[in-house]
Structures are given as C-alpha cells and as structure tokens.
C-alpha cells in the first residue's frame, strides 16, 4: 500500500521518490496541469483516473497553492492561507477516496463572537442550541431563526445541484446548452411560484436586507453577516452579499450542512491526499517547475515551457492559475482574440483580505467567553453589528486596511495536536478588509507590519495575555498572497464573487465552460464556476469537460 508511507509525511511535502527527479529533455504527456492548487490536483486526479498520462507543474517548492500547510517556525504547522474546510464537495471526497489517502476532516462545534460590551454570543451547529443562544438576545429572533435556517437550507439545496455542473450558455442554441438550460429551468420550476421569486431575489439582494427580514438584534445580525463578506470587496449593506453568505453556507462536514471543520495536519493535508491519490493513479507532480509560457501552434495548445527552458508537450493543458495570470502572463496575447483579452483584463479580482498566522506559547485567555464553552474551539469573532463590519468596509473603499477589522480567528491546535508542540498553540487569523493597493501606493513592509499590529491590537483588546504569548507571527496582505501563491491582487477566490462574475459569466461570458479560445487550453481554478473556497468543484468540472472533448463519457466522474 503505497499511501501509508505518505500519511506519515505530514505537511504538504511529498516524499522525493514519488516525484520524478530525472527527466529527459522533452517529455510528452496527455495532459499538463499548471499549478498544484487543490483544483489543479482534482482535475489531475480525474484525468489520471480516466487513464491519461498527467503531470502537474508547480512553481513553488511545495504543493497546494493556497491549500497548504507549512512549517514556517520550528514545530508549528501553518495553514498559511485557507484555514478551514467545509465547502469541499463530498462527491469528490468520495470518488477520489481521499480518506484512504490520508485526509481527515474534524468538525468543530460552533463559533463565538465577542462584543464591545463585554458579552459574547456562541453559535452552534446544533439548531436548537443555537436557537436557545439567540433567545438570550431576542425572543423574537429565536422564533425567526427557524424560518431563516429553513430559507438558507432551501437555497443551499437548490444551488448544490449546480455546483458540479457546467453552466449552460444562455445565448447558445446548441443542443447541449438548450438541454442544460431546460433542466435548470425545470429544477427552478419545481421550487413553486413563491419560492422562485424568493430565489431570484436572493441572488440580487444585500445580506443586510435579508437579515432585516428575520432579525432585530444587532448582534445576531452582525454575527451572521460575517460570512457575507469573507473574501469579498463588499460590505453587508451591498446588494449581492446575500449570495456570498450562501456561498459560505453551502458546505458540509460528514453530511452536516453548514458545518465547518479542520483538516487534520492543516489544510495542506487536502493537497497531500489529492497528490497521493493522483500518484496512485499514475500521475506525477513536479514542484519547482514554474511555467513560463504556454506553447500554442496554429490555434492549438501543444505544451508548456518552464522557466529553465525545459519544454513539456501535451495536447491538453489546464491552468489552475487565475484567469488573468493564465491569459495575460503565461500565454501570448497574440494567440488570443483581442476582444477576449479585453474581457480578461476587465475581470474584477480585487483582494479584500489579509491573514495572520501566529505561533503561541500557550492558550491565550478570552475572559469574555466562558472557560468551558465548546464554541471557542471553532471560529472566534469580534463584532457587534453589521454597521461595525460595514464601517470596516468603508476603510477598504478609501484605500486603507480596516482600522477596526473583522477577524475570523481560530486555534485549531486545541483539536488537532499535530499543529503545535504540546502545550503550545497555532492561531490563524483571517482579516477583512485589506485592499490590494493602498491609497498611498503599493504595500510596503512597513504597511504590512502596521496592518499586523492593528490586528494584534484589535485581538489584544479582548485577550489580555495574547500579545505576550506570541512566539512568531506571519502577516499576509494581498501583496504577500500575490507574491507567494500567485493570486492576482491577493483575491482569495481568484475573482470577485459578484453576480456579473458568477455562473455563465465566470470568468468571461461565452467562455464559462472551462474552455478557452485556444483549442486544448482549459481553466480549472476558482476563476471558473462555481468560484472560490476549497471546494474542488471547478477542478472536477474542468476534468469532465476535458474528458468530454477527448471523447470520453460524462460518467467518468
């Protein structure tokens, strides 16, 4: 069993014997995947399973892209970018048999929010526990929480059907598009008249309007609104944020909808498990292999050239890079129609978040939260209203990081002891908002440090011993996210999740089916439907389209 040895190889480092070190000068494959992010690996897995000779090329010395575990300080494992798991499609989890390749997702029970007045709100995966907690703030809101949850799960159920499907082109008269549109229409029609109106409205409304329909307590609304802005350059009062909230609700862990969990060993375990699965199916992963050019001849892709000049040949190339990087950096504009290039250029990909990863020499205290509250093992937030979040967004708009940021902080080492030495802890702090560029110009190291201290101070206000416990801290602004992982403008979703960039509009109208104007060239990253988050759906969908073009059956997935 080749996989067992790999499980022990914690962190996203693959044991060398499995990566081919020696290459002839020119290699030929059936398919080349550019970028070993989780989507690239998913695509590669499905192609390898279908019997193709596949190689994944990764520029960094480690795999995973933004789904990564790294030891940046001795003894501590950092989920350096993405940090929790829920959206990953269970269908992919099952068909690729990822548990067998070492992936274990540990659900956590809830989250807790600290408010300015010294209070807290704990929320739980368990509906009734949550309802009881809400009734501490408002009896009426507790009643309405039933209605709200019902509406959210209805919307989740509806959208889930379309996550692993290719969006049909509404302008096309091709049989396949018409058929897919018709089946989409039929699923929609099944909702019934009232629900159809509500579903369409849901996609165009703001999170604030949605929550105002159910809740009166500012705290409850602030707590729920947190998920409507993650990774998004919008505030909860902006139309379109109800959808972003849904995007963060539609996940599940072990069949519990809306639940979130930790990947044991950090998020890199997902990438490692995928790489193990890929290798088990005969595929290869090469790190330190940065692609410089996609080679196109006569409107057809025929391979890639690496930075060191080496060329690899394949009739199929799929890029896990974002749409801008793929078509504007590693491809030659002359190989693409001018109108297409213009559309790629205006794709909106502004980053809005930053990240702090902190090694702690002990568990910091949060006096506001009861000592034994299970919710402190999940996400911890600091907010008390939608307004407070919206004001943080105003800072983003004026080209500065939020002075009173919205933070999503977790200490996963409470549940997963592999992340830190005994008694010590690993803390992950997701920060909203940080603009891709500052009003004063590009980010500098001094700006980054100031951003870091803003966040540390914000947390320190709720945890007296927090600052003293910091042993090591890594700060990531959009600038670092771009430089380190190659996410253009530091956008964690490889493109903003607004209505103009969803479904058949993602990334470019007319090219939303994972193909590009160049034959044999595909996109398989989060720039494509259904977008970002560690979901794997774009990768699986791209693989299905590739196999379809190669004349394989749909059912291969």
């Amino acid at each position: 069993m080749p996989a067992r040895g790999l499980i022990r190889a914690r962190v996203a480092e693959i044991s060398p014997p499995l990566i081919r070190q020696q290459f002839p000068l020119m290699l030929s494959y059936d398919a080349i995947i550019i970028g070993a992010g989780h989507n690239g690996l998913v695509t590669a897995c499905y192609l390898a399973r279908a019997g193709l000779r596949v190689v994944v090329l990764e520029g960094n010395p480690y795999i995973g892209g933004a789904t990564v575990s790294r030891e940046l300080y001795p003894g501590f494992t950092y989920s350096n970018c993405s940090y929790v798991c829920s959206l990953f499609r269970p269908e992919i989890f099952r068909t690729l048999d990822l548990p067998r390749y070492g992936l274990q997702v540990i659900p956590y029970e809830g989250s807790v929010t600290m408010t300015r007045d010294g209070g807290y709100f704990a929320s739980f995966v368990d509906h009734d526990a949550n309802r009881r907690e809400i009734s501490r703030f408002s009896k009426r809101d507790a009643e309405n929480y039933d209605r709200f949850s019902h509406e959210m799960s209805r919307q989740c159920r509806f959208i889930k059907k379309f996550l692993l499907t290719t969006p049909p082109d509404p302008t096309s008269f091709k049989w396949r598009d018409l058929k897919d549109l018709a089946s989409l229409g039929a699923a929609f029609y099944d909702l019934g008249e009232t629900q159809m109106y509500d579903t369409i409205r849901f996609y165009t409304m703001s999170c604030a309007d949605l929550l105002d329909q159910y809740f009166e307590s500012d705290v409850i609304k602030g707590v729920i609104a947190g998920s409507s802005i993650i990774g998004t350059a919008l505030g909860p009062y902006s139309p379109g944020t109800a959808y972003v909230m849904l995007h963060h609700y539609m996940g599940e862990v072990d069949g519990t909808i809306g639940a979130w969990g930790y990947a044991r060993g950090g998020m890199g375990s997902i990438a490692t498990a995928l790489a193990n699965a890929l290798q088990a199916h005969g595929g290869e992963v090469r790190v330190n292999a940065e692609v410089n050019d996609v080679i196109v001849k006569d409107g057809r892709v025929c391979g890639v050239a690496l930075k060191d000049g080496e060329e690899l040949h394949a009739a199929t190339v799929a890029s896990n890079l974002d749409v801008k990087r793929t078509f504007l950096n590693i491809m030659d504009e002359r190989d693409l129609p001018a109108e297409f290039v213009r559309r790629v250029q205006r794709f909106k990909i502004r980053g809005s978040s930053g990240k702090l990863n902190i090694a702690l020499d002990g568990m910091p205290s949060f006096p506001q939260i009861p000592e034994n509250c299970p919710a402190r093992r999940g996400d911890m937030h600091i907010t008390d209203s939608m307004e407070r979040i919206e004001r943080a967004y105003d800072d983003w708009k004026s080209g500065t990081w939020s002075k009173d940021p919205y933070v999503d902080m977790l200490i996963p080492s409470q549940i997963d002891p592999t992340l830190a030495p005994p008694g010590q802890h690993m803390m992950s702090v997701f920060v909203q908002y940080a603009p891709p560029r500052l009003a004063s110009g590009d980010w500098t190291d001094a700006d980054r440090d100031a951003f870091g201290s803003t966040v540390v101070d914000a947390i320190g206000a709720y945890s007296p011993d927090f600052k003293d416990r910091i042993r090591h801290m890594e700060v990531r602004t959009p600038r670092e996210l771009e430089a380190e992982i190659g996410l253009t403008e530091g956008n964690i979703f490889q493109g903003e999740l607004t209505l103009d960039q969803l479904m058949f509009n993602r990334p470019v109208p007319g090219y939303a089916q994972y193909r590009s104007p160049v034959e044999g060239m595909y996109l398989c990253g989060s720039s494509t439907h259904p977008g970002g988050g560690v979901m794997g759906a774009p990768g699986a969908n791209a693989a299905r389209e590739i196999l379809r073009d190669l004349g394989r059956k749909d059912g291969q997935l």
Partner: protein
Amino acid sequence: MKSVRYDAIVVGGGHNGLVCANYLARARQRVLLLEAADQVGGAAATESFAPGFRVSSCAHLVYLFDPSISAELKLADHGLVWSAVDLPSVALSQERAVLSISSDPTLSAGEWMSGEHKRFDALMARMTRFASVLQNLYTRVPPRLRNRRGDIVALVQAAWRIRRLGRDDMRELLRIAGMNIADLLDDELNDDRLKGMLAFDAVLGTRLGPRAPNTVFTWLHRLVSRAPAAHGGIMHPLGGVGALCDALSRSAQAAGVEIRTGARVESIMCDADRVTGVRVADGEEIGARQVISNADPQQTLLSLLGARELDTEFVRRVRDVPMAGTAAKLHLAIDDLPTFVGVDPEQARGRLVIAPNIDYVERASNAIKYGEYAPQPVIEITIPSLHDSTLAPPGKHVLSAIVQYAPYTLRAGWGAHRDEFADCVIAVLAEYAPDLPDKIVERQLLLPVDIEQRYGMTGGHWHHGELGLERFWMWRPTPGAAQYQMPVEGLFLCGAGCHPGGGVMGLAGRNAARAVLATARP
C-alpha cells in the same frame, strides 16, 4: 350612507392616479378620484414657498414621462406646454472646465478628453439598446411565474427580446445587469467629471453608492428616457411639474372622471375579501366595485386597508419593502442669477450636477448607511425660472436642488440639525457659485421626513419604496402583488411603488388601468 356607487375609486391624485383614472374613464367606467390635498398632483406639484416664488416641490424635471400617454390623453390640448426640452446635463468641476452632455450628442459641449466623446457615444448607444428592452417591459403588466398561457407567453417574449439584441449585446446585458456602475464606467470611460455625473444619475433616488452592485440597473432605469419610444430629453413643463398634473387632471375630467380634492381617504372598506368602497375623513362612505390606490404599498395595505384583511406572510413581505427616502429638496428664492463658475448661460438652463468624481459620490453615500447626512452631498441643481417666467417675480429666480444623501431618520435627530444640513448644502453650492449665498432671499429644505408628511409618502421615498434589481418587475413592490392587483379582490395599486417605479413616468398608472380592466372583463 352610501350615495352613489362607482365602478372605481382612485385614492390619491398623483400623476399615476390621474393617468389610471383617465384610462378607466375612457373605458366607460364611472370613476371617482379622491385627493386629500387641495390640489391634485401629489409629489408632482408646483407650490409656492416664498411670496412670488413657486417651485416643483419634489420632482423638478421630467424625463421619463411616457410620450404615448401624453398623446393618448391629449395633454397638449389640455394645456401642457413645455418651457424647455432637451435640457443639457452639466458636470460642474472645480479644477477643470465644466462638461455638458445632451440627448443630442452634437450639442454636447465642453473640453472633452481625446477619444472620450467616441467612447461615451459607444457606451450610450449600447446602454440605450438595453434600456429599450427595459422600456418594453415597463409598458406591460408583469407576468407571474406560473403555468398559465399568458404568463408563459410574456416570459418567452421578454427572453426573446433580450435574445434579439444579438449574441454580444445579450451577453453584455446579462453580465452588467447586476454589476456596479463604478466598475462599468471605469472600464469604459476616463473622464472623472463625466463618470461622476453618470454615477450620480445611477444612484439618484436610491440608498446605494456607485460601488454597490445593481447600480447599473438603476442607471438603465433612468436611461429608459433615451429608448427610441421615449421623448429622449430632459424637459420642464411651463408652470413647473405641477402643470403636467393640471393637464392630466383636465384631461381626466374631460374623459368623465369626477375629481374631489380635500377628501382624505381614511380607510378602504372591505367585506369578505372583497373591496366595497372607501371611507373619507368626514365619515362619508363611498361604495365602489374597485378601489385603486395611488398611495404607496405600505400605506395602502397596512394603514388604509389594515393588516387583518391580509395573509400574515403577505403582510410581512409588505413590511419588508425598504421605504426610507434618501433625497432632500432645497429651494432657494434668489434676487439675482448666481454665477456658476465656467457655466455659460445656455448651460445654466439645464441641470447642473455636483458629483465631480465617482469617489465623491461613494463617500457621500457612506453617510446614509449610518443614519447620518452627507457633509459633502451630491446635488442636482436647476434654475427653472430661466426658461419659465411663471415661477418667480421678474428679474428674480428660483433655484431647486435635489440633495443626496439625507436619511429619513437622522440618528442625532433632525430637530437641531436641519439648519446645519441646509447650511452645509449651501456651502457646497457656494464652492461652485461663490456669489450665491448673498443672493438668497428665502430658503426651504424638504427632508424625506417632510416629504412623508406633506405628500403622504411613507418614508418620503420618491419611488414609493426602494427601486433596485431585487425590487423591479415581478418583484415590485413584492412578489404576489406585482400585477397591480392585491390579494383582496377589487383592490389595486397604481403608484410608483409598483412596476415600473418612480420618476414621473405615468406607466404604473396606465398599466394598473389595464390590470383593472382585464379583471372587469368576464
């Protein structure tokens, strides 16, 4: 005691009520229109605010009014005269020369950046094509999402009209419909003055800023005025916007509508889920088979009818309609014409816009979210007395300005801050017309809360409730009530709270009349 029985009673004599009553009377219905104020017009009225000075108190320009309604109701024969048509829109600027645009591209003036005029024309040509799709929807009663032939046909027609734009245009429309205006303008244009003014047009009358998604839609709503079937220009009726309603009123009376002013409807009566008539303030009950309300949805359904006649879920939906207005009106009586820097006399006749760039508009919009007023507001200025001498004594002028953003509820309370806000607005005006403050004889500020009180519009909202992509067509004012007919038999809405929304268009009134007549037929 019930005296006369009418086929239909129209509650409220705003422009939509008048239009609706007129079409019903033309279909040989016996129609009574009841207006609470002493004159008809509602929010489309011309009123005196200082001795000798009159002003269009709410809407101060007409650009969306449907020309086919003007023609069908023969408004010209009933005294409607335009004192100005095709008024230019002028982007004021402190740093650079002003820029002026007009419905006729050749009339656009000012210093254009190289190539900008061409880009602007291309953008407007495309947006106009999109607006005509919208215009087409606007002239019809919205369909419902159900399995009836008429509805399915209407939906397929709507889809086909979009498809008929051609593949490129269709793709573009489906992409930008939910987009924000700031990104669209940044993609297509370069000139800050121009982008600022267009962004202003997109957010006027809403609570959104230009970076909020769905503002391309609100811009398209305004651009319906440019659709081929529309007048095309920004116009001003002689005698102010109230003159339009006077003409509508005369036309309605000629068609046989009985109009009673000073008759405030207190409640809409209903019996066994069927409307029976209305009760007016003096206690008189007037019977009718149908009651059509020009009041806003919340007032009609929750105040006049009463929640107990309605389904709980429906009441909840009506309560959820955002009704807080965001625009204030400032009226100045001035004893001499102020000098707006860089604006020539011809341009001064038009609408002058203070929205120097997109960020300025966005910053102004921040305030409304927190119940504050914008200290640096965006402003649309008109000096109608330049082309309409009926509004001011000879040699003197009125200045009418729409000021955004002013919240319905100021967190600090409007009481002490009302004058402070007016001073603030005048200070901003003075940045562009330094001699203005010395020429002011009298001033009047109408906040959303004043508009609510004077015209009975809940929240003082222009559109009788927020207009946006999530609240238009089948969703306006709320699903289940978007076809003008309310859940109580015989009760209809005909105001701006319904499809297609506000902006002195008249289409809600005509569409409502069609819906009423459709149910009257066996």
